């Protein structure tokens, strides 16, 4: 099999591959990649280089991992997972990503396609109006610094307190929408200036808001789907993909600089500048962790405010309160984050960058609502091909520090995609296929063309067969908003 690397890659199973520590000087643990043979062959050279660089980080335990949607990132590959000892290991912003707590949210409804189709154009216009997207977009909420600090500390709970959602939403958000240990004094003024007006905005790039349909024949696990309110029969659901916006990016940029200096002080060397890190237990490491948690909570709040706006848009278009339409939150997951979690090795700081937590049934870290089923995992595909709802497994807890895929992963650069097609052309083609797209930027739309992404069904199949998540349902788009 021809791979984009000269390294030795050993097959462990049909969906698991391992690069031994002998393949790169400084590797402390092997690197493991989850992929089918076809996906592995399509992976770029950056994945192999970066996952083996991650395997060199001080304090890493067991394996450096990459999920099947993996591709070249900054420092860590996208799809990368690493668990590092809280006492002897490091924390790296490169293992979290610039968009801290970029994540996915899924909202169910009692509506079916027949209810929505005649009003789809109006609905998408209303959503486009209520959820600002694109360059420099600002939200409708105006905060002073102290209020924004409340958002940093309380996350989605702040939103509920201020009427932007329902109290029961919190049970359907990872960490209840509020991670403890957020300290606004560790955040720069520049980060505050960038983020203070962005609550309730989508951003651009691969971020989107999508109206989707769940048909009965696309439900793979009916029992779990039913438990989460996914009933099929052309049911309408809404998916949101976005994160902490400029605020999180500034936190990441600020601390990459801090860590460059800290590495000299602590005598740490890394294979790539973007892996700049500091001991987790150090002042710098703890400061970053506190600031990162501020950004993570702000991202939970951002998606909560967007949810509030989605409910208002539906209520306006259909003339009924959102509660009457059953617009409950199915779940909200982070896929760019570092969290302290307990495994057989003890307390570890688990970095997931383009990877989703996937707790299995019975996990005490899940709210009672999900303890029987396991945690919902929401995976966004390209805007043309659809998305998936999966469920976490005990296999993930055992094998991957409870981690799995997050999306489909790109195969083509943004610049290449823009050369291959024009945004207007894609918008027209998608409309002919029954998908209504509203975009702030036509060039941005071209960058997100379906052909620029891996086939998400193959990626989902890989994690399903590997046993680190199980497929619950496939979701097909009918309306999409992009920045």
């Amino acid at each position, binding site marked *: 099999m021809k791979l984009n690397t000269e390294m030795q890659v050993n097959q462990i199973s049909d969906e698991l591959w391992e690069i031994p520590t002998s393949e790169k000087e400084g590797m402390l643990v092997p690197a493991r990649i989850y992929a089918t043979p076809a996906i592995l062959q399509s992976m770029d050279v950056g994945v192999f280089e970066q996952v083996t660089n991650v395997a060199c980080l001080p304090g890493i335990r067991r394996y450096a991992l990459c999920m099947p949607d993996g591709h070249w990132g900054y420092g860590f590959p996208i799809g990368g997972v690493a668990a590092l000892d809280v006492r002897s290991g490091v924390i790296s912003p490169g293992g979290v990503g*610039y968009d801290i707590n970029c994540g996915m949210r899924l909202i169910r409804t009692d509506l079916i396609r027949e209810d929505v189709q005649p009003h789809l154009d109006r609905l998408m216009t209303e959503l486009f109006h209520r959820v600002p997207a694109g360059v*420099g977009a600002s939200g409708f909420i105006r905060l002073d610094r102290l209020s924004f600090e409340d958002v940093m500390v309380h996350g989605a709970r702040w939103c509920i307190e201020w009427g932007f959602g329902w109290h029961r939403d919190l049970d359907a958000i990872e960490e209840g929408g509020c991670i403890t240990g957020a300290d606004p004094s560790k955040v720069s003024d520049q980060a505050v200036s960038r983020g203070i007006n962005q609550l309730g905005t989508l951003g651009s790039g691969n971020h989107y808001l999508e109206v989707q349909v769940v048909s009965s024949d696309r439900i793979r696990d009916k029992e779990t789907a039913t438990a989460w309110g996914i009933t099929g029969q052309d049911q309408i659901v809404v998916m949101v993909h976005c994160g902490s916006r400029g605020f999180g990016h500034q936190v990441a940029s600020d601390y990459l600089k801090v860590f460059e200096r800290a590495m000299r002080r602590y005598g740490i060397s890394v294979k790539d500048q*973007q892996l700049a890190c500091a001991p987790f237990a150090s002042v710098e490491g703890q400061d970053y962790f506190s600031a990162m948690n501020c950004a993570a909570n702000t991202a939970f709040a951002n998606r909560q405010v967007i949810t509030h706006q989605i409910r208002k848009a539906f209520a306006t278009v259909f003339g009924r309160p959102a509660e009457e339409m059953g617009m409950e939150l199915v779940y909200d997951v982070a896929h760019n984050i570092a969290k302290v979690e307990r495994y057989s090795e003890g307390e570890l700081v688990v970095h997931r960058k383009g990877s989703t937590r996937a707790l299995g049934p019975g996990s005490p870290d899940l709210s009672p609502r999900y303890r029987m089923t396991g945690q919902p995992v929401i995976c966004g595909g390209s805007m043309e091909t659809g998305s998936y709802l999966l469920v976490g497994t005990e296999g993930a807890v055992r094998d991957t520090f409870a981690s799995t895929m997050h999306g489909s992963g790109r195969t083509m650069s943004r610049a290449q995609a823009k050369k291959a097609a024009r945004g207007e052309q894609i918008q027209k083609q998608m409309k002919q296929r029954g998908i209504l797209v509203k975009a702030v930027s036509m060039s941005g739309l071209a960058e997100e063309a379906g052909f620029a992404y891996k086939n998400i069904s193959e990626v989902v199949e890989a994690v399903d067969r590997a046993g680190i998540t199980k497929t619950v349902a496939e979701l097909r788009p009918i309306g999409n908003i992009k920045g």
Partner: protein
Amino acid sequence: MSHAFHYLDDVAIADLAFDASGDSLQELFQSATCAVIEALADPTTVGSTWRQTIERTAEDPAELLFDWLSDLVYWKDAAGVVFNRSDLTLTRQDRGYWKLTGLLYGEPVNGSVQTLRADVKGITKHLYEVKQEDMRWHARVVVDG
């Protein structure tokens, strides 16, 4: 704007990368600045009602360029603007330091009149380099978008 930069097809799959160049460091800075400005919006559709002066000093021109480009990203969000152009001067100071004085022109984001492009969110150190080769300055920059 006709400065020397081009976006790269095969670098930074998920984001945006460019090579910029100039006969002098100041020209290089201008070229790289144009690359970021044009990544955000078509500058011919952006007015210049908003202005901001920025001064920075650094010993290492690579660090200075990185910080300056990061300033553009910062002001884009902090002031909610996109840019039309920038005037910048780069001077050598005592003790080997470089001083950059930049004047940014732009206007508040308004999608109804401006052709908006990517919401550049950060300048990264991924594959980042500034070098002089054959009497010409070059920079490779990957931006997170």
